[in-house]
């Protein structure tokens, strides 16, 4: 978080640099069945983010040591392709990607009915081919759709979105500049049926009231995104 409070990103009419209002989401598209050799898959664009997720399984868990006798394990890999960022990303081990893989796994393990597949594993590959702030949210959301596409049973789908603060104003769904120069970032993973959470991170500086505002923005946005997800799963590609 840069905290460069003096970079003007929202004007007196509440219009942001890309023309959005404080509560507006970037444009989203969702398609399923985009990786033909996988058991389930999803391609999601969100602003100029693009994530492609493939799901394989449930299948025999190899190596033996990762197997659990009582339930399935999720093998989640989040990765950014070298050409996904303005400055090329070198392929290879990346701490940030490891962390995001883990918190994404924790979120999804909270909804997948793992006990139905003891000793097996479900592999979820999240590839970010174009990045523009909020990639972890795109990845987690697209992974939910891919899991549903693969016929994996879940108590609900996870919808992930982030809100933050720019020029002291709380806004929904930060874009790249806002993420760089803004004062806070609050990504969440929400279950649309109950409003409960399976994923939560935050960094920056938010007052109690601002925090509540950002929280509510995420909750409202999640319902809109969820409708896109449902339509994509029921009827094909959705704009």
């Amino acid at each position, binding site marked *: 978080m840069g905290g460069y409070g003096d970079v003007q990103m929202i004007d007196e009419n509440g219009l942001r640099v890309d023309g959005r209002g404080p509560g507006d989401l970037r444009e989203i598209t969702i398609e399923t069945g985009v990786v033909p050799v996988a*058991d389930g898959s999803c391609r999601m664009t969100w602003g100029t983010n693009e994530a492609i997720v493939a799901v394989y399984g449930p299948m*025999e868990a190899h190596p033996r040591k990762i197997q659990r006798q009582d339930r399935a394990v999720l093998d989640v890999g989040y990765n950014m392709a070298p050409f996904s960022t303005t400055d090329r990303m070198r392929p290879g081990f990346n701490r940030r990607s490891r962390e995001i893989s883990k918190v994404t796994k924790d979120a999804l393990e909270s909804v997948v009915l793992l006990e139905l597949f003891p000793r097996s594993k479900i592999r979820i590959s999240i590839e970010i081919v174009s990045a523009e702030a909020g990639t972890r949210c795109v990845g987690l959301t697209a992974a939910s759709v891919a899991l*549903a596409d693969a*016929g994996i*049973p879940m*108590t*609900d789908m996870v919808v992930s979105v982030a809100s933050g603060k720019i020029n002291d104003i709380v806004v929904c769904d930060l874009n790249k500049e806002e993420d760089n120069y803004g004062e806070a970032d609050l990504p969440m993973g929400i279950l649309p049926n109950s409003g409960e959470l399976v994923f939560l991170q935050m960094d920056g500086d938010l007052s109690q009231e601002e925090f509540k505002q950002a929280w509510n923005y995420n909750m409202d946005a999640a319902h809109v995104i969820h409708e896109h997800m449902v339509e994509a799963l029921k009827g094909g590609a959705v704009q």
Partner: protein
Amino acid sequence: MRKNKDAGEPRDSGRAQLLVVPGEDLGDSQGLEPGHGVMEVNGRIRALKRGMMTKNGSYISVEPTHTRYFPRPSDLVIGYIEGCTNNIWFVDIGAPFNAILPMSLGPGKAEFGGTRAIMDVGDAILCRVQEVEETHSSVVTMKGMGLRKIRSGSIEEVDPHLLGRLIGKGGQSLRALKEETECRIVVADNGRMWVDGDLSGILQVRDKLQSLSVTSQQNNAGGRN
């Protein structure tokens, strides 16, 4: 929250079909028996998978559009030998975990250490599921009528939800296909099918599977009923 027009009321009874997604609310649970692919949460029925919701009287379930095979005892399955020890073969039956074939349940006479000589990695077998334990592998057996190592022909993967149309009412579509192609066809329970005969017959069967798959995709294109 997505507005559910008939929240609180049961959907039409009979064989009504509707495409649903995980987490979708399917109405009040009163008087309903949750079956495959659904669960009861706080007095409501909730879908767990994407698929067709079916209501058969009081039994409500979701048949997934894509699913993995789950072994059940006495299922006829086609498996591939993935590995072996001195007295066990490990068999890939297309399930979330491999099955075990102990030598005592294998073909012919058992001789400790001789697994490889009888059946090796990559061989295909027709066998039956003997038992399924929750935390252990399922066990398959080759002791039984018609069970054997598959030595010729081809094995096709068939999407489970095409099986109904492939087999037809009372098995008549399958019988017709066998006659037309002059092939021996064994449809296993695990989404695999053994076809044996002249190459032209095998190719005909493959074409038939392809056309079934295409029509099925066309029917599901809109997604809604």
